[in-house]
């Protein structure tokens, strides 16, 4: 009994420890320049990661634009057209597998299908890699929350003569909207912190870049490169970026949780 209380305490202890280091070292590195400047040359003081913050937002937005419709529709198909039966079972199983494919493997895959044929690393290929990771997350939550919408609601809408797709888009989605939103927010929180799939796709860039067909820096890849560098200034910027990123992710998670608490069906 004591042992189990201790293990709970140990887990919380590690969480607090990691957060403490992040806050202490992260805040020390953050100032106005951090958000508004481009990187300083190695060895020089100052500099910021404006380009990487921009890159993370752009790539995450593009990944969401791909993954949300696909994940939502696939989840809808499972819940509304294939709730029982073999096809639904196979899709759910493989979606769970896709969910657990190591993210670096998704990176190698996108490298082979996009980066090599196009001849260059690009923000777009990074977004595709993240979308592949995001789709099964959204599929799963959509499938689950749509199933919580009671059949009576659907039947009432059918009784008014509405076709099936109208029932789904106007009635079922509306009933499950908070659940769907929660799933999307948690999926975004998941991909915004991904590094591995971006290493071989969006790669990195030390300059301001807005062309999505060119390599683009992201916060996570910058953290990786800077933390591994021998320059103290860069390592400190990596801590600052980690802090900002973690705040992003935790806020998204809390938001998702908060929404979920006020749910109707899902």
């Amino acid at each position, binding site marked *: 009994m004591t042992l*189990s209380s201790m293990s709970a305490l140990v887990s919380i202890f590690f969480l607090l420890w990691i957060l403490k280091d992040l806050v202490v070292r992260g805040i020390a590195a953050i100032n106005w320049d951090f958000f508004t400047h481009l990187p300083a040359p190695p060895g020089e003081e100052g500099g910021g990661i404006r380009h990487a913050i921009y890159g993370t937002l752009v790539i995450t937005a593009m990944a969401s634009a791909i993954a949300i419709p696909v994940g939502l529709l696939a989840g809808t*198909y499972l819940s509304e*057209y294939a709730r029982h039966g073999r096809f639904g079972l196979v899709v759910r199983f493989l979606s769970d*597998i896709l969910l657990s*494919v*190591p993210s670096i493997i998704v990176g190698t895959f996108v490298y*082979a299908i996009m980066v090599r044929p196009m001849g260059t690393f690009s923000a777009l290929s990074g977004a595709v890699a993240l979308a592949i990771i995001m789709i099964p997350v959204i599929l799963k939550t959509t499938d689950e929350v749509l199933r919580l919408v009671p059949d009576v609601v659907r039947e009432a809408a059918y009784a008014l003569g509405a076709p*099936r797709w109208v029932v789904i888009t106007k009635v079922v989605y509306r009933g499950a909207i908070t659940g769907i939103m929660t799933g999307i927010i948690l999926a975004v929180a998941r991909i915004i912190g991904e590094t591995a799939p971006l290493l071989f796709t969006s790669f990195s860039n030390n300059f301001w870049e807005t062309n999505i067909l060119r390599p683009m820096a992201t916060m996570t890849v910058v953290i990786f490169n800077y933390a591994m560098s021998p320059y103290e200034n860069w390592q400190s910027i990596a801590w600052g970026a*980690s802090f900002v990123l973690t705040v992003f992710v935790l806020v998204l998670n809390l938001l998702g949780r908060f929404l979920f608490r006020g749910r109707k069906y899902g």
Partner: protein
Amino acid sequence: MKRIGDRIFKSVAFLSALLVVLLVVIIGVLLYMESRAAMDRFGFLGFIFRDVWNPVEDEFGGLFAVVGTLLSSAIAIVIATPVSIGVAIFITELSPSSLRGLLSAIIELLAAIPSIIYGMWGLFVLAPILRHSVEPWMIEHFGFIPFLGGKPYGIGLLNAGIVLSIMIIPYISSIVREVFSLVPDVMKEAAYAVGATRWEVVRNVVIPYTRSGIMAGVILGLGRALGETMAVTFVIGNAYRIPSTIYEPSITIASSLANEFTEATSTLHLSSLFFLAFVLFLITFVVMSLGRLIIMRMQRHGV
């Protein structure tokens, strides 16, 4: 008109679902095709058991990375399993119900932290502590046990195992908690009625009843650990060799991909890296399927 709208919506939804299936299949097939060059040269098992990794002379084998992957994950599982079960017991059976929600939320936040943050923390914070305090202490007191003696490194298998275990504890414990909640109250009450203590109820009723669920949780946690990249790349040390103690630097499949993929010097080098990715894909596929199948069976037949 109704009919057409319905048909279009259904087809588009169907294609989306089909895309998920195709993605898994295509990823597998493509990794296989990309690794053909290395496979033809070294053979399938020949590659996996070959203990050489030399980009300069174009000689490659997977043994170092496979061994490093398995060992670091094994250390993670050894640490994470008891702690996760402990956390689950604490949250479901011991803590006052007012604390329960808060506690599980805090532990799940651990899972939300991006893996690269764990890596940085392991490199800059944990590594010096391991090198100067923990590992020398372990060597002094447990050095007589095989693999626990030797020199302290700080960066190496043990560090990777610890960081991985912190990362998978929330994952395993949330699954264990879920299966614990499936134990019918009647069974626990029956045990309490004959005078069992809380500990006895947990040990003799809850744990035996949920054994396969705990197993599934551990397997799924293992699947996570095997493919984890960023956290491990920071702290494993990236050394292509067979470690002789748990403190020594090593390499995992995922971290060797992260380090070398964009810098591959030859076709054979790149193909060998794809081969490693294919091996990792197969391993996680098997491990995850196993875990999922256990859970699916439990859902169908009860625990």
